[in-house]
């Protein structure tokens, strides 16, 4: 779900740049990536689309008779409930990482002395498998763990939210930093010299200029969060399901690949719409900012 979508706004921006008279690169350079996407993204997506219109028979057989049953089955308060909950997780996760990540990125970009070292520290968690890092949280949430253990967070929804913010924070910080790094701080100083208070200067200068970073970071966090699977299973004790878990359950437990595919298709389509609308809105902001 998450792999290709984030590239959408980037690709669009690249086109804009080429159109704006930038250097022209030979198109064949993109062939390996294109082949990769076609083979491992477009094809599986196509297979899933076909699956979603088919029907399971018995325990193993899939009957390819074009029908809309799976989608009809999805119109059900039960699944609406799961989607709403997932949307809540993704929205809260995105806002929380933004609120926590922005000051850090701001500090890194504007004042930090040892930028490289600090940036490295942001990236260091990626050196360890996400699975192991999530398991580490189990130790921290353990009732026997000092201080935090006393909060009784283990296997609760709160634990899922904390895990999610932890997991996705670097994905928010890095694009924010990239945007703020390029920011010309003399503009902010000029605004202040001309009578803007720090807050007003922040709102009128810094925020619009950081918008591309906010957009990129939000998409990088929001989209994978809509398919979040691991944190609910490990930190939530698998007690609450989100869309990703629902899809996983269809494929691995219920073995109803057609229905699982239909859920995935709906998720992908709604994400595409979100990305499209969001990046359109953002590009307008970007135009203002530029």
């Amino acid at each position, binding site marked *: 779900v998450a792999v290709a979508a984030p590239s959408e706004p980037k690709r669009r921006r690249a086109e804009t740049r080429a159109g704006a008279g930038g250097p022209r690169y030979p198109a064949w350079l993109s062939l390996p990536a294109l082949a990769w996407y076609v083979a491992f993204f477009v094809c599986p997506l196509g297979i899933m689309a076909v699956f979603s219109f088919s029907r399971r028979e018995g*325990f193993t057989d899939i009957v390819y008779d074009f029908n809309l049953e799976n989608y009809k089955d999805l119109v059900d308060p039960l699944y609406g409930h799961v989607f709403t909950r997932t949307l809540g997780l993704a929205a809260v996760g995105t806002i929380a990482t933004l609120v926590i990540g922005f000051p850090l990125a701001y500090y890194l970009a504007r004042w930090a002395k040892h930028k490289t070292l600090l940036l490295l520290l942001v990236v260091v968690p990626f050196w360890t498998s996400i699975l192991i890092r999530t398991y580490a949280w189990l130790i921290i949430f353990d009732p026997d763990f000092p201080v935090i253990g006393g909060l009784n967070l283990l296997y609760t929804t709160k634990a899922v939210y904390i895990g999610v913010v932890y997991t996705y924070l670097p994905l928010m910080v890095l694009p924010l930093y990239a945007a703020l790094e390029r920011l010309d701080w003399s503009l902010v100083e000029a605004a202040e010299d001309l009578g803007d208070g720090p807050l007003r200067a922040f709102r009128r200068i810094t925020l619009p200029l950081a918008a591309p970073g906010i957009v990129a970071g939000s998409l990088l966090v929001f989209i994978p969060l809509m398919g979040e699977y691991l944190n609910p299973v490990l930190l939530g*004790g698998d*007690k609450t399901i989100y869309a990703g878990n*629902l899809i996983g359950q269809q494929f691995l437990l*219920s073995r109803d690949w057609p229905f699982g595919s239909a859920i995935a298709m709906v998720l992908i389509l709604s994400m595409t719409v979100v990305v499209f609308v969001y990046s359109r809105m953002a590009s307008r902001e970007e135009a203002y900012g530029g």
Partner: protein
Amino acid sequence: MIDPGWERNVTRRGFVAAGAATAFLAACGGSSDSSSDDKGDSADKAKGPAKLAGTLHYYNWADYVNPETYKAFTTDTGVKIKKDFFVSNEELQAKLQGGARGFDLAAPTGYMVQILADAGLLEELNWSQLPTVEKNLDARFRKLPYDPDDKWSVPKDWGTTGFVYRSDLVKEKPTTWREFVDLTKGPYSGKVTVLDGIPECVGSMLCMLGYSYNSEDEGEIDKAKQELIDLKPHLLAITSTEYKQMLIDGKAVMALGWNGDGAAVAAKKPAEYVIAEEGGEFWVDAYVIPAGAKNPDAAHGWIDYVYEPKHNSLETEFTYYGSPVKRDLLEPVMDKKVFGNEDVFPPENTLEKLEPNAVTPEGTKLRDRAWTEFKAA
């Protein structure tokens, strides 16, 4: 995975043997024993066991084999072992159906043997390469309903689904599902886990309500679902892999789970495994050779090797699941404590209450829906 007990974390997640209990309970039917003699033809037998070499790619539940057995097998036969693990029968099926090839040996649950065989995802066994199995397999475990001709599978071990409790922390001595549920909603709220298994949870609740483990009645399944939903706020976690360690640590004091895990907890801490009075599930896990196996000789070699009573005892002492080898052959070689442990080898009259998982696609669909509602609640 992180706890000190990881090396013994038997994460077997079985669902069950279609109809196995019935056959199993028709215990000691001697006729099937003699009929198995004409299986391997004499010409094949004359060749003797195939020479083993290369690598055995074994796809299994995690930590479901005594590490000693791996070592001894490699030393004795020269065959190296490559291991891969699945967490559910359905995952195994999904992989094989998705086209994964090259596994030489796997150990799914009975009902899955049938599904895989029907889907053409298994290789037929060559019984001439299994003389030790022929000799030592208990007659009760031959021709089980999920594999009536012993064509595709050889039993690995067997067990039951019930519940475990820490007898030092739970004083009420529960013996029924109803008590399990009431205690979970009462004094032990937040300290109980259930398996992440659809048939196990729904089936156990059905038994509690006085229905069949395999009920396909929508109203009955609905009531079982409601019991689960009411139970949910009081659960610590829904897990098939972590509950054993949680019980040992005392984070959980009760768990809906499998007998082997129960016995393993009891080996470390005061604990009781209970086959609930209302009934429950009986299952058999079996060795099969997945389609496209590269080294079926080594797979046959492994199965035959572990059917030596000595080797099989090692397995039982490690997993705490029942051995399908004839009891009189096990007696002299198995640890007395394990051999006489009623959690590992439940007595006949207890087993009579149990049913194997035998649900149909329709029943499965109803259960899946109930499970989603339970999880989404």
